[in-house]
């Protein structure tokens, strides 16, 4: 016998085992655990393993341009999108961006499908454009979104597809998949909204239009409606972390169809000129803009070819509300 004092057992350990605890302990030894059960599932219920001598196929990419958005066009998703738009996106845009819509009468007689091609300044552009679209277009429109930005992972892709009915468009390389999907949807009666500049403006001025919208218009034989968005760059410019409140103007132009002999490049250039004319109209007045358009003097979307500060300064002169101000009022630094 040792003389060492005997260690006291903790009270619970010293408590006598109850009958229930004994039963639970017994059951644990008899019932297999969930992980044990999973481990027990075998092929074909489980995926096959790959023999060591075989080089496995690369995993199927399910993000970026390969993200499948078909589910987002089913009735349930469409209903959810509509509820999301009316319940959240529209009120938010209305409160934050207060869009003034001009030129809707120019599209009043068109039923679709059509391609809406707008200039691009901000992440707000899509929501502002959607909130300005008449319901007959908005309820059946998909957005051409950058695959390398909005579909980088499945969560972002799912959110873009659900909220905006976005489809991934490859902008860094030419792929048939994006164009085929867009063409199929247009053939199926969907309208498309696209920002032909391919990305947001870095400094508030526009960038050259790429040929995607023009190519699809030619391929699907549908009209393109040029749209000019003004003001979103002041609320949420590229790189900004914080959203500001303010007003925006959405100007719709008349539908454009490719002329005889137009190819994607020429039609895209025409489209860019039309959006530039709308920008001129939005920031001056319709008559002056038409006069300049016919004289081939419409200011370019890409702004003056000058130093950065002068380009920024010139931006301040393009304000659709400047006619409301008294003439001779001091110029405000943009």
């Amino acid at each position: 016998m040792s003389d060492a004092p005997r260690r006291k057992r903790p009270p619970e350990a010293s408590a006598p085992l109850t009958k229930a605890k004994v039963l639970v302990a017994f059951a644990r030894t008899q019932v297999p655990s969930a992980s044990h059960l999973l481990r027990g599932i075998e092929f074909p219920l489980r995926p096959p393993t790959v023999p060591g001598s075989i080089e496995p196929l690369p995993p199927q990419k399910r993000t970026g341009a390969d993200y499948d958005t078909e589910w987002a066009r089913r009735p349930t998703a469409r209903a959810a999108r509509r509820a999301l738009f009316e319940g959240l996106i529209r009120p938010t845009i209305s409160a934050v961006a207060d869009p003034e819509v001009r030129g809707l009468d120019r599209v009043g007689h068109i039923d679709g499908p059509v391609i809406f091609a707008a200039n691009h300044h901000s992440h707000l552009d899509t929501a502002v454009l959607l909130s300005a679209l008449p319901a007959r277009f908005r309820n059946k429109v998909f957005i051409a979104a950058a695959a390398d930005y909005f579909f980088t992972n499945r969560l972002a892709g799912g959110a873009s597809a659900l909220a905006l009915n976005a489809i991934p468009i490859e902008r860094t390389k030419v792929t048939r998949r994006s164009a085929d999907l867009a063409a199929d949807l247009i053939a199926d009666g969907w309208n498309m909204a696209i920002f032909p500049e391919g990305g947001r403006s870095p400094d508030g001025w526009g960038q050259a239009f790429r040929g995607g919208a023009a190519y699809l218009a030619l391929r699907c034989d549908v009209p393109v409606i040029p749209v000019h968005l003004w003001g979103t760059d002041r609320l949420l410019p590229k790189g900004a972390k914080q959203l500001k409140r303010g007003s925006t103007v959405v100007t719709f132009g008349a539908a454009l169809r490719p002329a005889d002999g137009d190819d994607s490049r020429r039609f895209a250039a025409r489209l860019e000129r039309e959006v530039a004319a709308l920008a001129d109209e939005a920031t001056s007045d319709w008559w002056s803009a038409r006069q300049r358009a016919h004289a081939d003097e419409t200011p370019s979307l890409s702004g003056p070819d000058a130093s950065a500060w002068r380009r920024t300064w010139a931006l301040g002169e393009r304000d659709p509300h400047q006619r409301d101000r008294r003439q001779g009022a001091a110029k405000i630094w943009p």
Partner: protein
Amino acid sequence: MPRPGFVLDVDKSTPPILFHHGENFRLEKLPAGRSRVIYPAEPHPGIDDVDGAIRHALLNPLGECEPLPALLHRGMKLTICFDDVSLPLPQMRRPDIRQRIIEAVLDLAAQAGVDDVHIIAALALHRRMTEHELRHVVGDRVYDAFAPNGLLYNHDAEDLDNLLLLGTTDRGEEVEINKRAAESDLVVYVNINLVSMDGGHKSTATGLASYRSIRHHHNVATMQKSKSFMDRHKSELHSSNWRMGEVIRKADVKIFQIESTLNNDTFGTEGPLSVLQKREWEWNLRDRASFMAMKAGLDRMPTSATRKLFHSWRAPFGVTSVHAGQVDAVHEATLAQVYSEQLVKVEGQTDILTMGLPYICPYNVNSVMNPILVMCLGLGYFFNMYRGQPLVREGGVLILSHPTPWDFNPVHHPSYIDFFEQVLSETTDPLEIEQRFEKDFAEDEWYRHLYRTSYAYHGVHPFYMWYWGAHALQHLGRVIIVGGDPAAVRRLGFRPASSLNDAFELAADVVGPSPTITHFHNPPLVMADVS
């Protein structure tokens, strides 16, 4: 294919017939065996490519006229005039056809390098149009481009500095029109021909004229000789305007006329008002339910609310034609189109003509249909919706259905109030009214001031409204108004009746106990071609 208008012979199985009654409606059973109803045609289909039709019209003018682009050149003075708020009725849904045409014209002008452009609402002696109304007609783009610079404005028939006397007709009628238009290298007139009375030389000779000029055809003698206004070749009113048009032409005022026609789609095919466009026996369960619900609501709403509700209605009119070029050639093509849409052949006249008057006439857009306008709409406009001979025989009875409130809009119709109180309380004879009272009202400085600076009709305007009905007053044996304010109806010189049957009883004194009855089921617009 729309069904044409027709004449229904009422029998025992004919359902009650819809009568417009101001901002409300009545369903009335007409006596079987001796009544008939004239129904309008269904709306003709509108043009799908309206902008294409406009462009085609501008490039392929009618008559001896060059295409519009050939008439436009740098350094010229261009004036675009357009019909005012009195057309169309009700106002059409945006975009208004005038906006589309004006934009197309301006686009060509911009292409040609034209800088000097004025745009004028040709409103003659009507009230000035508000900014909201101008925006609705010409669109925001045109308004914002021209109005802030003072280049889009209402014609002022009392601005002596801006009127020009061009000459007189061979009958001594003075032709005085807007100076800017008269001195322009080209006047483009943009019109809507809702009915056959509109358009032609009347557009410029009346729309841009002064009181000095208009008085030559807006008088009792001319109106009584116009049988009817809707038949231009039998209208002395139009003959006078055509003579003036000739003076304008000889004064080297070059006019490029653009006329458009609208279909009959006044109340649309959807919504509660669509039932008004259907024939009663074709009302389905939904139509009946919506009519009953609408009527129950209207019966319980205050008049101001129902008035606001109806005046906010924008008709879904379709554009059925656009013609441009030389005035006469354009107008003949336009008339042919209007007649093809609105004329209904009717055999013989009737003893009693019944009509339900709606809430609107050309002179109470966004306003009150006062008793004088009730008279003008019933006896001036609807009575004259005929070609050949009047629907009702000479000495017959006209029964109108309208609440005829003793109510005036003091901003729009100040001289109407005085006319009703001071003139009609003394006499309702158009000739006597013209001789004794017209000059004082026409030259009253206060009315002139309100016309020029507020939104008032010219001081002489209520007289003209009365003259519009002069031909009917001369022709008819009695006028009865059902459901009207008895005091107001009596002031007009008419007989009030509380129900249609009471009106028939009152009419029996004039036309005997078993008269023939014709109901004019209008609007949507219909015109009787009476043989």
